[in-house]
């Protein structure tokens, strides 16, 4: 084994490998080329960025004074006029969401220890799997605008919800339904939740009261609360107007970095973190913590002693967490998917070859996930299966430079929706196309191009 192989995946190894990729030295004549180009490139002048000849001081002073007067007059004329770039109105205060109480579905996952539901005082119990397919909620990036609509994946019927102008602050990277499917939420590139779609009223409102932040937001399934990690590494619970509802103190020393996950009944938040941690949020081991929002103590669940844990999903009955983990203690890296009992912390290994982006089926009996060396397979596996590979339902053709992401089950569990980055004449385009494939296996079909969606 080489020295490089013998190292764990630590800073030194990453730096060394990037340095090899970066190479040494400059191409010959690069500096000369830069200067030659600069010599014939006019610099922008300080007055409005236009190219002007150099003027004497007196003339410059007169021009600057004239510009200041013009700016004052122009500003006075523009005061009170509508902003041209307002594309959606600020959201009025969001009233509390109320919904009927569906009956939780018992989990089919066998457990060695009897487990209990996360909370007896649920504000919104887990939604039962639907019998019908249900529509997708779609964020579609068009040529000049973003369209938001529901889409029947089989008939193609669309119901418009609203339009966002391209370049608006609500650039989307994620969209998801609330549990009652009366609303959906758009998450921006900054990982902040940025807009709420009211599916009943067919309207879209920017959550202007919710400030963007470096922490990943997570909207509760009940659709009325936002969980966000604070700069002090605590957990803030906000309402949709951005007003704080409560702040939950997390254990000293943790540095949660990844997206937190609400329980299906919106009563608690799962957080993963190292403890103890280094200054970059690294360290071993990582743990899962459950933080009830009603003031009950935060508790660590299980003791996995791994280097990295992402919380991929909760089962719809709230009894199990789906985790992806990774550890690189020596020359080899290990990790994959785990199913953890949320009450006891007992975890069962499901896969062990780097699988990720896993989601429970609506009834909790199966898991869909991304595997393959570079995300080139969508696979399905029963949650009570022995550790090992699953059944591939979608595979990237050999040699095709594309990959899969974001597997999502249909409400009745018959289909899996996923995103595929398209290739047209070898060029990467858009934000990916959405495809769907029968969860039992079959021919994938294209749903819509240049879109993200939830089902």
């Amino acid at each position, binding site marked *: 084994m080489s020295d490089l*192989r013998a190292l764990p995946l630590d800073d030194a190894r*990453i730096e060394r490998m990037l340095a090899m990729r*970066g190479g040494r030295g400059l191409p010959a004549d690069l500096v000369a080329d830069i200067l030659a180009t600069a010599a014939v490139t006019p*610099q*922008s002048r300080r007055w409005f960025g236009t190219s002007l000849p150099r003027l004497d001081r007196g003339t410059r002073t007169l021009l600057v004074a004239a510009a200041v007067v013009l700016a004052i007059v122009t500003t006075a004329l523009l005061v009170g006029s509508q902003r041209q770039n307002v594309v959606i109105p600020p959201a009025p205060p969001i009233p509390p969401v109320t919904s009927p109480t569906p009956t939780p579905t018992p989990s089919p996952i066998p457990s060695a220890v009897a487990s209990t539901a996360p909370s007896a005082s649920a504000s919104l119990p887990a939604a039962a799997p639907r019998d019908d397919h249900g529509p997708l909620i779609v964020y579609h990036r068009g040529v000049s605008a973003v369209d938001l609509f529901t889409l029947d994946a089989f008939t193609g019927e669309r119901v418009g919800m609203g339009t966002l102008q391209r370049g608006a602050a609500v650039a989307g990277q994620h969209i998801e339904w609330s549990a009652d499917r009366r609303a959906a939420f758009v998450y921006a590139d900054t990982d902040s939740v940025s807009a709420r779609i009211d599916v009943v009223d067919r309207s879209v409102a920017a959550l202007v009261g919710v400030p963007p932040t470096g922490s990943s937001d997570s909207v509760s399934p009940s659709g009325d609360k936002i969980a966000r990690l604070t700069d002090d590494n605590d957990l803030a619970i906000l309402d949709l107007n951005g007003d704080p509802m409560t702040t939950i103190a997390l254990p000293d020393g943790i540095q949660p970095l990844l997206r937190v996950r609400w329980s299906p009944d919106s009563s608690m938040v799962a957080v993963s973190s190292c403890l103890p941690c280094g200054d970059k*949020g690294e360290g071993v081991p990582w743990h899962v913590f459950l933080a009830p929002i009603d003031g009950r103590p935060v508790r660590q669940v299980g003791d996995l002693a791994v280097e990295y844990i992402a919380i991929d999903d909760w089962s719809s009955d709230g009894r199990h967490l789906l985790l992806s983990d990774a550890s690189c203690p020596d020359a080899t890296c290990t990790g994959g998917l785990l199913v953890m009992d949320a009450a006891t912390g007992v975890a069962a290994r499901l896969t062990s070859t780097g699988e990720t982006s896993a989601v429970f089926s609506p009834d909790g009996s199966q898991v869909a996930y991304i595997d393959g060396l570079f995300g*080139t397979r969508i696979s399905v596996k029963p949650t009570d299966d022995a550790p090992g590979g699953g059944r591939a339902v979608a595979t990237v053709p050999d040699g095709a430079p594309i990959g899969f992401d974001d597997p999502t089950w249909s409400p009745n569990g018959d289909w899996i929706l996923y995103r595929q980055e398209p*290739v047209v004449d070898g060029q990467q385009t858009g934000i990916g196309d959405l495809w769907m494939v029968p969860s039992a296996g079959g021919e994938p079909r294209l749903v819509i191009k240049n879109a993200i969606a939830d089902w």
Partner: protein
Amino acid sequence: MEPVVTTSSAPAVSADLDLVRRAGRGDLAAFERVVEERAERLHRTARAILGDDAEAADATQEAFVSAWRALPRLREPERFDAWLQRIRINGCRTRLRGRGRVAHISLDDALEQRQPGPSVSDQVADTDLLAHAIERLDAAKRSLLVLHYLDHQPVDAIAGSLGIPSGTVKSRLFEARAALSRALTAEGEARP
């Protein structure tokens, strides 16, 4: 190994600041000194991001020429390096968006290319694996990996120069590391 901590505005010395100010007033000789101080570092990180010599050279040249053009409008010369970094990173991202991915190598192909035993072959395979893992990352994560692990920039400096929150930098850095880890894990499956 602890990375050397530098700030995005280094070298923050008065002589360099004077060069930047003079370059902003059209002094090409001063700009030449500014370029010579930074060209190798910029090119190295561009190459680490783009994975291609020619594209890295073009991206580096474009960044410096853009900086020359807009330099008179930079109100805080002390921010020159952070500003230049943002120009360069945006340029690399634009190039990454405009080209196709490196051709995917299937797991079987990767196995065929590896030689058993000798450390040099393992090094090549390891770097090749990393190269393909990096190609799978989006431009933002790729840039962050390079800025932090190759340029040794602390999180706050990266956040300041890219205009994004420190928390976002941290989470994306960790996601990028996790992506590399997954690639190595999958490769571990393929070993005899």
